[in-house]
């Protein structure tokens, strides 16, 4: 259970299908922090969202005792700094730096490359698939001999990398484009199975059927062919 008082007000402005919103829910749940979830519509942004995140006007935003924090990686570190039980980041400074490095690689490069796989067609899509796989190979190697990126238990990089496990890998099934085949990425597939064995992950990721329906609807809207 969290060390802090349960009378503290923790609110999360998020969206149920967003990987960036879900990673905050994972962290709060891991720490046993009760929170109120407020589903946002980014096509019709609430005045609350605009007030709490005036710079980017995006979710997720964590509000703790009235004070807002934005940007998912910043929020994750805030949660770890504030609720000290079940640490997410490692204790050792070098390992912390490495964890931050992988998180940025996932968000700034893997995520961008994966979005191109979805958004492009033909040769451009093939190139995007290759670029994504090149980046995923680094994660593949990093997982060798480990149950999780965090070692024996879930950590910062695992939480961030759920984007790969439950967004990229669910989308590729719908696209009919195997970006992360098990033959090339056995470690990543093993890691996903480990994630699915974890109660917090199971509780916090979007339910598969609803999620697939949502992704399919979005693809239809953007005229992207689904398998």
């Amino acid at each position: 259970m969290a060390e802090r008082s349960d009378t503290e007000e923790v609110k999360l402005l998020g969206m149920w299908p967003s990987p960036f919103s879900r990673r905050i829910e994972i962290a709060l749940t891991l720490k046993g922090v009760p929170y109120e979830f407020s589903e946002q519509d980014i096509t019709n942004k609430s005045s609350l969202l605009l007030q709490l995140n005036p710079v980017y006007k995006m979710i997720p935003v964590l509000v703790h005792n009235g004070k807002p924090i934005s940007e998912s990686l910043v929020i994750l570190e805030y949660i770890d700094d504030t609720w000290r039980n079940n640490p997410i980041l490692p204790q050792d400074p070098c390992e912390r730096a490495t964890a931050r490095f992988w998180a940025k690689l996932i968000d700034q490069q893997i995520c961008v490359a994966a979005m191109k796989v979805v958004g492009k067609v033909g040769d451009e899509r093939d190139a995007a698939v290759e670029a994504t796989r090149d980046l995923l190979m680094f994660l593949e190697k990093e997982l060798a001999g480990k149950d999780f990126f965090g070692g024996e238990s879930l950590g910062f990089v695992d939480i961030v990398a759920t984007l790969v496990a439950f967004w990229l890998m669910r989308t590729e099934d719908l696209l009919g484009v195997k970006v992360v085949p098990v033959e090339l990425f056995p470690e990543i597939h093993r890691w996903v199975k480990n994630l699915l064995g974890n109660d917090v992950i199971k509780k916090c990721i979007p339910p598969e059927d609803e999620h697939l329906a949502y992704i399919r609807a979005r693809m239809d809207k953007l005229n992207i062919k689904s398998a």
Partner: protein
Amino acid sequence: MADEVILLDYWPSPFGARARIALREKGVEFETREENLRDKSPLLLQMNPIHKKIPVLIHNGKPVCESMNVVQYIDEVWSDRNPILPSDPYQRAQARFWVDFVDTKLFEPADKLWQTKGEEQETAKKDYIEALKILESELGDKPYFGGDTFGFVDIAMTGYYSWFEASEKLGNFSIEPECPILMASAKRCLQRESVVKSLHDSEKILELAYQLRKIYCV
């Protein structure tokens, strides 16, 4: 056992500058190894195989990459003196948020200012100033982003401050009339001992910028 601290660096880099400043703020002795970015050393390629970029801090043989990761690492290892990040979690989050903003919003326009011309350069200028104005509004009436003390966001910005003069000359514009308060803070930062020791002459940076521009055929 004495610490071995090596910094793989490139003298005009605003990102290398951040690492140098942080080390000097903490009074850490370090060895600089200057890289030729067109002929990267085997050590750089081994220590940062994914991005192959400087700065890389090598502390007792272990590498740390990405400039603001390096700064955080330095703050965590030499935590007994001159804190760079605040101790309060909310203020730390704010500092991290603004450093992320700096690197997200200034990076591309700053490069495009000297790499491009015409309409592309004008757009870069507009984006650059817009981002600086948002930062200035965050600075408010504080002497530093860190409040009364030079901190995490100030170190991130000082890398860019070191290129202000070159950006202005190449972009043919002036930052001070647009962001006078930010400029005042910039001047304060540029006078700091750790910064003076870490930055090269702005003349040299300008000279390099002109040379680079020629290479880009602009």
